[in-house]
């Protein structure tokens, strides 16, 4: 009863959970143009995920796996369905998620070694991130039981909370569910004995180990997604889209969202996007506003590029940005290879290289 009254008061006054605020990007999150100024290594339409063993770099785009070779991409293998996640082990094993509904583990010669279609009683539905945990186990996140990986925005706008995180020991076909009822699980990484996993719609990264699950990183200004290990023991975290007050407001208006989802083409929703500016029918970017003839680079974005470097204990150390007037938005994956950082900009379909991350 008291909670209901408090909730009602908060909604009336715009306080507590109903306060429409977003964390500020300052300090280590101070905007820069590191991603805008990054070298474009390749243009791969549909570029989505990256995988590395520290030396090789694989990229998935559509149904194809590419390998970066001699400074350019080389087709490695083509599948019969869209690749929604990819991982590479130290011994050269490759794991791919196809259409979000099945996961294959291939040995270094390319032969299928294991296959996963279900998690417990339910089929895989939107597998969007994979990471090897040693050579015999694979960590995976299944974003939603309701929507496909490409329909992540539907999941956001319908307040989806059916994401799952699991460890699959493919050597003995044993699956352990690490987390469920996640508000869009998207991104997983092994860190010693622990597992890091992103919960996008709650803007946080969790750490699960033998002692339980705790929040490692919270109150992020974007929606966290895939992670990859950094050379210094920390990790790189992508935020594939950013939070804005406008979207936060829309998320607190269920009736409005229901009508928007039912009646409007998803491309024109008031919602975050991987890229923007393709159509005049899109909602105007906050940064579309010009002041004194200058496009405001600090205005809230609809699409944005953001990569965070996080220390092992969960402190954001620095960040790489593509501002609203930049092009390298919708960063869905990063990988550190021989001292350089590669980033997959799904919004622009470009593979980027930041020489000194």
């Amino acid at each position: 009863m008291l909670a209901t009254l408090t909730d009602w008061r908060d909604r009336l006054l715009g306080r507590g959970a109903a306060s429409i605020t977003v964390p500020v990007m300052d300090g280590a999150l101070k905007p820069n143009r590191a991603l805008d100024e990054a070298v474009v290594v390749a243009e791969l339409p549909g570029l989505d995920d990256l995988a590395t063993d520290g030396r090789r770099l694989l990229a998935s785009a559509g149904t194809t796996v590419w390998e970066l070779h001699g400074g350019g991409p080389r087709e490695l293998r083509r599948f019969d369905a869209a690749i929604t996640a990819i991982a590479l082990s130290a011994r050269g094993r490759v794991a791919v998620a196809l259409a979000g509904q099945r996961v294959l583990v291939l040995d270094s010669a390319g032969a299928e070694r294991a296959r996963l279609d279900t998690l417990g009683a339910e089929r895989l539905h939107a597998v969007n991130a994979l990471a090897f945990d040693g050579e015999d186990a694979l960590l995976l996140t299944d974003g939603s039981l309701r929507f496909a990986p490409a329909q992540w925005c539907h999941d956001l706008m319908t307040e989806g909370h059916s994401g799952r995180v699991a460890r699959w020991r493919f050597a003995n076909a044993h699956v352990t569910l690490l987390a469920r009822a996640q508000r869009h699980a998207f991104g997983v990484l092994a860190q010693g004995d622990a597992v890091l996993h992103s919960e996008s719609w709650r803007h946080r990264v969790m750490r699960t180990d033998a002692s339980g699950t705790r929040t490692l990183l919270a109150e992020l200004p974007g929606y966290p997604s895939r992670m990859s290990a950094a050379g210094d023991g920390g990790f790189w975290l992508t935020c594939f889209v950013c939070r804005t007050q406008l979207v936060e407001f829309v998320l607190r208006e269920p009736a409005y969202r229901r009508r928007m989802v039912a009646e409007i083409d998803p491309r024109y929703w008031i919602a975050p996007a991987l890229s923007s500016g393709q159509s005049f029918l899109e909602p105007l970017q906050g940064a579309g506003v010009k002041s004194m003839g200058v496009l405001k680079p600090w205005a809230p974005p609809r699409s944005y590029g953001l990569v965070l470097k996080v220390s092992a204990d969960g402190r954001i150390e620095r960040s790489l940005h593509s501002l609203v007037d930049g092009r390298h938005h919708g960063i869905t994956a990063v990988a550190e290879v021989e001292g350089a950082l590669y980033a997959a900009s799904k919004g622009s379909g470009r593979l980027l290289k930041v020489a000194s991350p």
Partner: protein
Amino acid sequence: MTDTVLELRQATKRYAGVPAIDAVDFALERGEIHALVGENGAGKSTLTKVMAGVVTLTSGEMLVEGESVMLATPVEARQKGIAMVFQETSLVPTMTVAQNLYLGQESFFNRLRGVYISAQQFLQSLNFDVDPTATVGMLGAAKKQMVEIARAVLHKARVIIFDEPTASLTPEEKKYFFDLVFSLKARGVSVIFISHALEEALLLADRITVLRDGRHVVTDLKSRFDRARIVQAMVGRDLSQTLYGQRKTQVRPPGECLLSVRNLRMSAVVKNNSLSVFAGQVTGVFGLVGAGRTETFKVVAGLIKRDFFHGGEVLLRGKPVRYRVGRHAVRDGIAYITEDRKLEGFFETMSIAQNIYMGLLGKIGGAFKTVSRARAKEVGARWAELLKVRAISKDVKVIELSGGNQQKLVIAKSLVQEPDVIIFDEPTRGVDVGAISEIHAEINRLADAGKAVVVISSYLPEVMSLSDRILVAKQGKVVVEFSATEATQEGIMYAAIH
């Protein structure tokens, strides 16, 4: 523009030996709109107050219509046709517009109806859309400005001085105000206006004068100025470089984010302001007057309230806080060191030790507050020693201390609370050079000790010499952040006024 209405020659005004304006030459032509720009403390207000008879010159000469005058009061200035419109209007809010217009000029047998008719005719002649029967307190800022202007014109003002006239106006009201200024010019009235918004100066003025550190830098036609030239003229100082040293080459690494302000709103002063403050760093907050810096941190410290509806969030160590009184913020480890020490900083008739001990009481709280004389003396003496508060005797009243020692006392009064977040608001305003370096050393010591330190300052060299990161506020929100190693005076000033 051929004849000079008002002229100042080698105008100097000193306060306690310190020049607020120093040998300034200034001339205002008939029917001219003349903008006065400069940083806070550049001497703009003092210069205009001299013209309006609010303060008198220490040396130099003032000429009105070529005649040397010495204006001792604003009444004398008005008699010479010079009127000043302050930011805070001088109208009586409970009286009507017409009553305010004719205040002090009422006839012996005063008929209100006659006053209203007369006021209506006069306002119409100015093309001012203001109801003469409206109560002034109910009018918006722009309409109040109109009434002020009308009163000045009614008093046959030939020179009208505006101090930050657009600071509290909405965009629509600003446009209205600009039209009014142009109509005044068309009537042959000369206008001086002080503004921090350079685009307004470039839009309105015929000529622009830039002041810096109380000295005249340049006066030129608007057409010969652009923003870059004005900014360069405003900040290109050298005196301060020797006082505050060079820019930082190294910054302290940020620790935990202790304080986070998100989308804070407070009336028209703080507009959706967001910022973070990290432990182990000095966060400098620069901005011009009216940028909402003080108000933001006063909300943080529980001294004023944010907007009741959708006022935003303040998070201390990641947890939302909303203080009803300042004592609760003190209890949570937030200390706000005021910019106005005389009004808010100390009890002037108490001793140093008693004042410092009062700060400690603020931290202790509880139902039984008692001041043990021995304990007060012990704590007071220790902190006075730590901060090098110098006085003739231990029992001297605070009012008898110098400005620098008073400021150190105010700082000690807060530091005795052992806060984690310390907000210094204009820490060296009105403080002598020796005390400045000691206060700066204390600020650096606090940051080195892992405290989260905020320094709000309107003085660029101070912000640049102290801060590890610099937040620039403009019109109620932080608009840009600089690292101390990348910041330049021009860059910061450009962000503050652009």
